[in-house]
């Protein structure tokens, strides 16, 4: 970047020309609605469709009751588990893409990004079709079961009982699986960009100095990919924490997450002030996460 954009402080007019539209857009459609919701969180219902902003903290008090706090903590646990699984699956995937022949790399990356071309709702329904009691996963498992049963008859043993489909959907397992499925690309892409920047001769140097592949991975690859890991964790954890659609469609009665509770306040319960308080509690939590991460990043810079 050079010229007018770089020294915008001395060249205010071109900067203003470029910046006005997006600033206006964000103010109107992001900051203003958020401010309204924030104000609601200090209000109370005075009629079926009217809210009085009285400055009360009752909504926050109620939001921190154990009933809601436990759902909140559970959401955090589900999001954390999702992030961890994404990291464990995503790291080898990112490494495989990094070490793939250059002509394959764009195609592999395209494969990672392809799900974004389809609407989340459609992807979720597709996954549900796969996991239903009559879905392909159950059919596949049933096929294996029957195969095993047939093999037993070959060696003269009793055949197995008939296959009873496994309940894969509408439980916590389904929610985590669905969240992993949706968020994996968010983990792989920052990991890939960190690993791609890693000088491959560092890995060779480690091998050359006597380290095996595992030690090289732990002592060289992981520390140097740390910025990518942190970025991947953040952009997986935060949306997973606020996930709504996946637990709503794939979860059971006991697997609702905080976003589902919030949605209920705005719709069925018609308690907007309480929903607003819950929403902002989630936002505060994310702020704290991001603040911790940037403090850590600053500390790393200072050490350098």
């Amino acid at each position: 970047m050079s010229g007018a954009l770089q020294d915008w402080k001395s060249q205010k007019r071109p900067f203003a020309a470029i910046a006005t539209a997006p600033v206006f857009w964000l103010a109107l459609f992001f900051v203003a609605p958020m401010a309204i919701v924030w104000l609601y969180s200090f209000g109370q219902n005075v009629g079926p469709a009217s809210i009085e902003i009285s400055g009360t903290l009752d909504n926050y008090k109620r939001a921190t009751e154990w009933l809601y706090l436990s759902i909140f903590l559970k959401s955090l646990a589900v999001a954390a588990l999702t992030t961890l699984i994404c990291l464990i699956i995503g790291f080898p995937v990112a490494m495989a893409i990094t070490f793939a022949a250059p002509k394959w790399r764009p195609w592999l990356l395209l494969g990672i990004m392809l799900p974004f071309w389809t609407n989340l709702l459609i992807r979720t329904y597709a996954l549900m079709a796969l996991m239903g009691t009559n879905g392909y996963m159950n059919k596949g498992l049933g096929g294996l079961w029957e195969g095993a049963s047939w093999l037993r008859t070959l060696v003269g043993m009793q055949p197995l009982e008939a296959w009873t489909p496994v309940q894969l959907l509408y439980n916590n397992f389904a929610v985590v699986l669905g969240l992993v499925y949706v968020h994996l690309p968010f983990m792989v892409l920052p990991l890939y960009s960190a690993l791609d920047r890693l000088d491959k001769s560092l890995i060779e140097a480690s091998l050359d100095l006597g380290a095996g592949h595992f030690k090289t991975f732990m002592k060289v690859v992981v520390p140097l990919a740390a910025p990518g890991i942190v970025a991947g964790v953040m952009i997986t954890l935060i949306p997973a924490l606020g996930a709504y659609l996946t637990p709503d469609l794939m979860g059971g009665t006991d697997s609702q997450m905080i976003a589902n509770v919030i949605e209920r306040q705005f719709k069925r319960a018609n308690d907007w002030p309480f929903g607003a308080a819950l929403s902002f509690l989630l936002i505060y939590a994310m702020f704290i996460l991001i603040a911790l991460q940037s403090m850590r990043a600053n500390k790393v810079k200072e050490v350098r």
Partner: protein
Amino acid sequence: MTETKTPIIQIRNVSKRFGKVTAVDNITLDILAGEFFVLLGPSGCGKTTLLRMIAGFEMPTEGQIIIDGQDMSMVPPNKRPVNMVFQSYAVFPHMNVTDNVGYGLRIAGVAKGEIRDRVTEALELVKLGGFEDRMPDQMSGGQRQRVALARSLVMRPKVLLLDEPLSALDAKLRAQMQFELSDLQDKVGITFVTVTHDQDEALSMASRVAVINKGEVAQLAPPSDLYEYPANRFVADFVGSVNIFEGRLTLDEPDKAAVDCPGLGKVYLNHGVTGPHGADVWVALRPEKIYLHVPGEGKAVTAASQDAPDGHNFARGTIKGMSYLGDITLFEIQLEGGQIIRVSRPNLSRHDQEDFTWDDKVSMHWRADSPVVLLS
């Protein structure tokens, strides 16, 4: 330096193919214990591939590499008694100098006290005492290279491999490092195998040089032999600057030979070349081995018409190009036959560069043992 004549590395009929490309083509050579061995060649000639096969990062398609009497075919890089200094240095950016240099020893499970002593010793060796706590991004390229050197030397390898060790340094530092590397090799007595495309580096540091061309060894010789007795046109041309003339061998006796070159005239030599009589050969003549003077002013002229001392070859031409380089001046001279010959002349006095100018008619002569007759 105690030089024994046992080969520390034996490369036996090694080939490496990447798909259809043959990077290394059936190379066989021995690297002796304690020598400073240089693999010299243009980029893409296969020298780095050969080095990487010794380190274990590439596996030979065919052939065998034996290090210290042990076949390396099934030995991974982390188990080989060699260490490498990478072209990019590959200093771990997330570790300070001490941790970088001690990395291999920590992996090997050496006791902490010994690691500290050996790291200190290695840093002294590469003149990096006092840099223990520096991070790599606070160091210059030359200093990072010293870290990489210390990191390898601290492992006390049988062989130290260096991939283009000086290519990223500026000219002054490069000259200094050439001396330091030779000195270091003398001190530690470890066999060094270096890859370079820079002939100056090869000539100044090596005890022996293998010139690699298109995956094959074009010549394996000590530096001075490489320069004065090149085996073929590729080596003559790649190592140093040279004039090459095509010709026909017309006389070949034990104490004299003659080559008839259409571009240069008849070239006489005071030794035999044992080539097939009447064969097409090439005469290689180094620019600095040609004397240049004004016609009629040849020194110790016995045959005035030839302007040359007894037993010297001679030629005449016109100066078509000059470049003054300070210590020497390079001339491009058009011979009477039309071909261009390059001559370099040391500026022994401050006014030497004023002796000649463009379009001057000049005489040249050279000793009968200066030209090299090449058969291929």
